[in-house]
């Protein structure tokens, strides 16, 4: 854990040291702001649901962009070799990268609180239960996508390839729900269960259900586990 934090800190620092990091984060904030402000100006409507609908879509591009270099860069530059010959386990390295991504996402989410303040200033009602559980959901969803992104990053030395792999997997988990209506009933229940949107929608409505938590944590664990195995195999 200590090592994971060390690696997470190194990654977060390097993210904020690079212009690319700022640009990525700025995009995130501008996009959420734009999607949030649009209905506000057009129809004078703004509520948390806008955030909860929009952020998952932005995540699809935003998170693979954050994670793409996390492992692939260490592989292409050879620094993974030094790292792995320190007394650090591959699992600790992978966890560190994951924490870094989740940390950056949490930071981005923190900035979207401005929108919440806008809602409050406009005198609308904010359901704080829904607010807490929705943001918790966004963080969990971000964590799942981060784990997928780490997995993508562990598969290639090339950042762009890593980005595309993660993007495809994330889109798969996101879109499944949209496909559900085309499927026969017995399949649709299954596909609904594996879609991230279905589980997130419960949280964004303010319902915290252990089944959803189990779903999110299993995905996180699964992808981080696979990433660790890939790194341990040294066949990359």
């Amino acid at each position, binding site marked *: 854990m200590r*090592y994971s934090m*060390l690696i997470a800190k*190194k990654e977060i620092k*390097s993210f904020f*040291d*690079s212009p690319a990091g700022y640009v990525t984060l700025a995009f995130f904030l501008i996009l959420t702001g734009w999607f949030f402000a649009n209905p506000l100006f057009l129809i004078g409507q703004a509520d948390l649901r806008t955030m909860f609908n929009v952020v998952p879509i932005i995540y699809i591009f935003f998170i693979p962009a954050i994670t793409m270099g996390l492992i692939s860069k260490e592989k292409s*530059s*050879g*620094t*993974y*070799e*030094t*790292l*792995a*010959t*320190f*007394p*650090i*386990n591959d699992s600790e390295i992978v966890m560190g990268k994951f924490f870094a991504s989740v940390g950056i996402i949490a930071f981005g989410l923190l900035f979207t609180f401005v929108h919440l303040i806008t809602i409050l200033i406009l005198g609308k009602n904010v359901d704080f239960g829904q607010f807490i559980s929705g943001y918790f959901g966004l963080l969990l969803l971000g964590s799942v996508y981060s784990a997928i992104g780490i997995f993508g990053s562990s598969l290639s030395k090339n950042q762009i390839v890593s980005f595309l792999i993660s993007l495809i997997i994330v889109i798969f988990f996101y879109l499944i729900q949209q496909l559900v209506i085309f499927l026969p009933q017995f399949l649709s229940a299954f596909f609904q269960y594996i879609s991230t949107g279905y589980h997130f929608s419960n949280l964004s409505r303010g319902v915290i259900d252990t089944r959803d938590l189990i779903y999110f944590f299993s995905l996180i664990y699964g992808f981080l586990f696979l990433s660790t195995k890939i790194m341990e195999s*040294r066949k990359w």
Partner: protein
Amino acid sequence: MIQILNLTKDYDSLRAVDQINFNINEGEIIGFLGPNGAGKSTTLKMMTSFLPPTDGNVIVDDLNIYDNSKEIRKLIGYLPESNPLYMEMTVYEYLEFVSKAREIPESKFKSVLKKTIEKTGLASVISKPISTLSKGYKQRVGLAQAIIHDPKIIILDEPTSGLDPNQIVEIRELIKELGKEKTLIISSHILQEVQAVCDRIVIINKGKIVADGSTEELKAGFKGRNRLHINFIGNANIVDEIPEKIPGTKISSLEKKDMSSEVIVEYSSDSDFRPEIYQWIKSTDIILLEMRREHVSLEEVFHSLTLEGGDSNEI
């Protein structure tokens, strides 16, 4: 202190390291010599637990790389061949990161850092981003990374490759200094490189150890293997009968030229077959032009050992 036992590594179908065995004693400076692609880096990567072996083991004191990888890694400082560094960090930031990864207590960091940058001569660039440093200084940063935790064993993979002559001299001096108190393993594909700093040389070729001994031993061992150059006119094929007529000799090469031919006859260290060979020549109708026994340098040892199809296993 370090035992390498039957260590083997396959990359898919390629056997990069083939059942190698050697021991390293405490305090020794070992030169691990071999041409490119011989399997040096692969061996070092297995010793440092970066790559899992296909077969065999590496034992350090009473630890082995399967059960005690972490403990062994703590004892080793390693500079990989490509000297990978986090280019965006400053030297200070990098060494701070390494010292944390190496579990150096925060309270000791200042003094450890001071000692390390003194040894490696990094004081003047300590706050510069690594990306802005010259190749020689980057190499020093790599070395600093390898020694910061005061490891008992230091493994340097081709530490001077790609440096200019002045930088090579500087890094060599640093390495000599380190060798005074540590067990040091340095790989190289350049003989002079290891000759300059090492007590003992282990030569690897095509994944196999082909020679192992002190610089002196290797020289002596090979000088004993006499090479007799015989230059003559006449039917060249007749020399094929030398090994039959004079047991203990063998033909190592035969070169036919327009006028004359040259054959190189080799024989083992403790005998001198010159009289017998001269007798044999007299019994044939070839005309002897020249007969010369060769003085063999260590460099030649290296060359002949690593030559394609060379008789490496006889030493």
